[in-house]
């Protein structure tokens, strides 16, 4: 049995302190210890992107991330995207453009797209495709997702 350790970090804007196993991966800390199952487990080897979260502004894979690396970090999961006013503009756009089918890739897609828009508010289609190139979707064929990200960017810039 691995030793227990305490991890302090900011999760979706709120400070958290949690005791967990020293060998925990971030994805398991989120899903099992904190019950935030929006972050998905897909391939568990860093290929599918379903477990993507944003850590200190960068999209990273929580399935390859020892939970201890979260110490002191700021982490955003899909649960932190909507606020009291409603869904995030990307989430609304995904719904409107039919960019969600089975939905398994959607949380990871949303976070990769958010990491892109936070740095590059007006990406072209190629930049969107590149930003989501580490997120596999077996339903949509990607066209609707790329459209949704671009429409969300337009809407954000008009606000």
């Amino acid at each position, binding site marked *: 049995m691995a030793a227990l350790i305490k991890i302090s970090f900011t999760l979706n804007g709120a400070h958290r302190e949690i005791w967990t196993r020293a060998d925990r991966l971030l994805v398991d800390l989120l899903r099992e210890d904190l019950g935030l199952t929006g972050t998905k487990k897909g391939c568990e080897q*860093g290929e599918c992107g379903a477990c993507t979260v944003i850590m200190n502004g960068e999209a990273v894979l929580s399935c390859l991330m020892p939970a201890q690396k979260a110490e002191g970090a700021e982490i955003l999961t899909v649960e932190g995207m909507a606020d009291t006013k409603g869904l995030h503009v990307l989430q609304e756009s995904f719904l409107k453009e039919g960019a969600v089918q089975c939905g398994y890739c959607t949380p990871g897609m949303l976070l990769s797209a958010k990491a892109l828009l936070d740095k590059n508010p007006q990406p072209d289609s190629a930049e969107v495709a590149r930003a989501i190139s580490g997120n596999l979707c077996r339903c949509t064929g990607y066209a609707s997702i790329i459209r949704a990200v671009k429409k969300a960017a337009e809407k954000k810039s008009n606000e």
Partner: protein
Amino acid sequence: MLAGGTDLIPQLRQGDKLADLLIDITGIKELQLIHEQEDWICIGAAVTHAAVAAHPLICKEVRALAEGCAHVGSPQIRNMATLAGNVINARPAADGAIPLTALAAEINIVSPAGARWVPIEDTYRGVGLSHIDPSCEIAKAVRFKKPGSRAMTGFFRMAKRKALTLPIINGAVYILWDQSFTKIEKARIALGPVADRPFHPKRAERLLENGDLTPELILEVARQAAEEASPRTNIVRGSDLYRKEMIRIYLARTLHSLRAG
């Protein structure tokens, strides 16, 4: 020792490697820097591929390295995985290590016996095997001579898709012109994955030296490099003959693009 973890975590999960204790070095400020030190460019061991690919100094001075790093894994992997880790993982197709090989890069290894700079080529022991022992050594940085205004670098890569795929072949070229820009003084070519480690086609490099980038010489160099490389027939990557031919074509294209400036 743990840096990005993108290779180590799956290896631990599959039981290929065992560790009682992991020490994460990525929080050490000194290891997070890209900086110039006299005529060297030095990249700390915690610097990710994304940081290398986006760094103004690297984009300006060493285009081949910026391009190579921009092709590793996926955006998320590039945000986590380190360039030094790309060397230590010792894969012959590593898109970060291939340009470093063409740049004759060195890696700083610290052990209880002290610190030393080692040419990265001397760290390879076989496919996926490095002489650097993460149980008792730390890599602190990689460095290479700043190419400068007389040098050019190029990178190429052929893969089945544009993203998230290992290369069928890849390569990097470094060329240093003489003072008058008429003759090549020094040339280095690195190719992957055509051997158990990043591979120098030495006869092709010698052909370039003292030459100019004439169309005839480019043809000859590319043909010679393809002859020296020994890619294996592989169900994912294609036959040896096909891959040799692709080395010839992609290397010639890269040299032509350097010729065009």
